[in-house]
């Protein structure tokens, strides 16, 4: 046989990133997912190029109470109007998006690392370790989530790091539960027994044999959770427990301007409200599309 494939190198196991990319690539078959993906990509783009895209300095006071579409002193346009301090709302939304996306991603990824490790260990080792981890997860999950955030942030103070800590603390138990369930299921498969009978160590089995096969539900959940975290960061800002001013964050923008909604300037709060909703919608549609695609095969 002069088969050229004879000399082809044996494929290494795909890295996690490649497998994730491949799963995401399947998305082309779900229109809903594509719309969600495009929305998210748009916000990512705006966040990365905020300094170029945003027409004005988000914190510079210019003309207070300018309506959307009115002309700016430099000849430009305040497309979304200005707030009570005369700051351009569009620019604040773009910069605020950067902050929200940055903290949401960092917090969710951190929560995922903690949740995955806990879930793998609980689901694979079972026994007392599982009971202890699960009990504490139950304790945390029995707090209504916003009550938990309020208690944590009120005690630690409002800062970016504390928000990340709070998100990790509050959402890693949920991630742990999902990973634990999937791990327990996969651990009964024959290929895990095969790995055990060739003497693989527990962490190899968890990370190389189990985790890649759990990616389907985890990618979907990751997108949903990005949405939740975006909502949460906004809610904390709204309640006055969020990222410190004056830099814009969407929740903070809403809370600072909401008293003007009934006073004739509803757009000030409604634009950032729409921005949050649109980004979350993007994440949710993306998750739905991914779920639909992953169920198909």
């Amino acid at each position, binding site marked *: *046989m002069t*088969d050229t*494939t*004879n000399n*082809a*190198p*044996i*494929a*290494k*196991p*795909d890295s996690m990133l490649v*497998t994730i990319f491949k799963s995401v690539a399947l998305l082309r*078959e779900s229109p809903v997912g594509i719309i969600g993906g495009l929305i998210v990509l748009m916000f990512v783009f705006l966040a990365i190029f905020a300094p170029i895209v945003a027409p004005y300095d988000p914190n510079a006071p210019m003309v207070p109470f300018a309506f959307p579409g009115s002309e700016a002193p430099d000849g430009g346009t305040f497309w979304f109007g200005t707030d009570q301090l005369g700051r351009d709302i569009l620019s604040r939304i773009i910069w605020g998006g950067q902050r929200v996306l940055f903290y949401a991603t960092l917090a969710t990824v951190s929560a995922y690392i903690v949740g995955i490790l806990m879930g793998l260990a609980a689901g694979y080792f079972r026994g007392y370790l599982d009971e202890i981890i699960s009990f504490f997860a139950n304790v945390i999950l029995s707090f209504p989530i916003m009550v938990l955030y309020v208690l944590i942030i009120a005690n630690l103070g409002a800062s970016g790091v504390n928000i990340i800590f709070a998100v990790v603390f509050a959402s890693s138990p949920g991630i742990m539960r999902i990973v634990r369930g999937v791990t327990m299921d996969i651990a009964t*498969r*024959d*290929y895990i*027994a*095969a*790995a*055990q*009978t*060739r*003497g*693989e160590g527990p962490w190899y089995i968890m990370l*190389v*044999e189990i985790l*890649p*096969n759990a990616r389907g539900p985890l990618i979907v959940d990751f997108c949903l959770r990005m949405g939740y975290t975006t909502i949460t960061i906004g809610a904390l800002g709204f309640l006055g427990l969020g990222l410190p001013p004056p830099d814009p964050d969407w929740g903070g923008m809403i809370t600072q301007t909401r008293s003007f909604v009934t006073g004739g300037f509803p757009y000030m709060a409604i634009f950032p409200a729409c921005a949050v909703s649109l980004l979350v919608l993007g994440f949710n549609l993306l998750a739905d599309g991914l779920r639909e695609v992953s169920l198909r095969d």
Partner: protein
Amino acid sequence: MSDQDETPVLEITGLRLSYYTRAGEIPAVMDFDLKIAKGESVGLVGESGCGKSTVANGIMRYMGNNGGIVGGTIKFKGRDMADMSEEEVRRLRGKDIAMIYQEPMASLNPSLTIGQQLMEVPMNHEGASEEEAHQRSFDMLSAVHIPDPQRLMDSYPHQVSGGQQQRVVIAMALLSKPALLLLDEPTTALDVTVEAGIVELIAELSKETGTSLLYISHNLGLMLEVCDRICVMYSGEVVEEGHIDSIFSWPTHPYTHGLFGCIPLPHADKNARPLTAIKGQLPLPHQRPKGCYFGPRCEFFEAGTCDQDQIPMAAVHTDDDPAHRVRCARWDVIDPKSFVPEETVKREVIPVGETVLEVKDMRKYYEVKDSSLAALFSGGEAKQVKANESISFRAGEGETVAIVGESGCGKSTFAKVLMGLETATEGEVNLSGTNLGEIAVGDRTAEQLASLQMVFQNPNDTLNPSHSIGYQIGRVIKRFGIESDPAKIQELVFKLLDTVKLPRAFATRKPRQLSGGQKQRIGIARAFAGNPKTVIADEPISALDVSVAAAVTELLMEIQREHRTTLLFISHDLSAVRYLADRVVVMYLGQIMERGATDEVFSPPYHPYTEALLSAVPIADPEVQKRRIVLEGNLPSPLNPPKGCPFSTRCPRKIGAICDDEVPPVQFAGDRHAIACHIDMEELRKVEPVITIPDRDMDAAD
């Protein structure tokens, strides 16, 4: 207008059924003709994916969202069902045409009582009153031999055993005395001794009520017990049809003939008369070849004849059976029996070497934790499940020992203990002189691990879907320290792929790109990568179609022969066991009932359980005579096994209270032929053989 009785119950002509997927229309069934007369039972046999279940769904006009009837007509009692309104079809379903399915548990609604589910049939179709419906359900349950119908009617489906559930489904189907009953693999999910009872019931009821049957199965042996006529399907087409005797005596289509060559019939022998697997695999529906779909796999393929137009059905053997027809362009010039593949020449009998594996009085008990509060306060009386009870046997180098038994007999637990996935509670497992029984898998040395490997049951579970084939085999080589240089590992991977007869290009593929049989081959390659002394094969072929199973079986034995490996073959399939095993261990509820050389176990004296088991296995050879022994009742729960002999609750030869109370003694019928039974050995020896094989085969086999 013809006489009423002559109108067939079902008449299908030119039926074409398709599924619609993202890839477009996929024809599932093509050019299907079938006539079923009143009281007749017709079998539809074929491997998975041949379209046999689709036919049943098509008859029911239940094709789901993505399926549809593309062409042809289905006439029920002379009326074209396409002309009926939705409402008329609905009234037909469950009243005139009823259906029974594979998974009895899944086909019953888990949150309604069995009584409610039965009663709604007459109440819905005939407007019966509640009392009347109740009475009729009660009577029908009695008719399907259910001991306590009232108790059963008040139960929920999960509270009764699988065999009982299937009886309920049958009762439900027969409540309205349908003219036609469709059975889609009704016994596939059941244990063989339970299956035997259900098959007998179906045959009995159809005779009594005059209901016509369409019996769908992959098992040719079952057809013989139920059907008058059969249709053999391949890739969406009927390739051969006719009366059952005619088909079994003169299988004319090369596929039909090939199927018989794949089944381990009693006269097959792994050395003298090995199985002849059909080469290649079933084409995917959208990759069917032109002309004869079986062409690429056929030994008699002739370009120009077989790959042209669609091949029509032709009548054959009309002298004996006017209904025998075959879809083969060359049926009149070929003789399938003349084909002898080169690989299946007689093989040398391999001599058994010294003892490699010795299991001595091995026990495995599980503690079932009673975590209730009451148990917590009373000190917690943990219940024990005796998954394995005093298991002893030996296996020599190059020997094949089969461990056979039905579900819950403890055979898989035994495999787990051997592999170290569980540790033995008591006793020894000696592999080449080392007691592995108490060494968990994590504590075994690489050498110990390599010397004992396993082939798993489920092809879809045996390989990690996330990694390439090459990586998974290579990892074994690396772990066992056979080779560490990547280039050399790759070379070894290629060699192993050669050994299991798969192309080297498979190294870069992912498991989902492989068929079930190919995955099992990879599983075998992986198990043999470390050149093991002993390989445990846990039901390695039970999830495969016959033609694929035969190839995998032959491959497994070929490699074993070459490496002189000790093979522990765990199976529920007595036919396969008889074919390939040198020695057999029969287990029931965690205990060994009988063990001995294969010939010894398959002929008297038998343990009564072995006897029943042998009788229950359907054999696809009309000339084989069987003595009928149908077991009553169900397998007892392993949580609560009988105190004495585990088989005492179902044993047809029970001698008295001693069977219930005392553990039976192990009696020796021969040197290493042991039977655990209270019945005197002399009594046991008097039994007639269960299976009588005609002489012609005996001559050839010896």
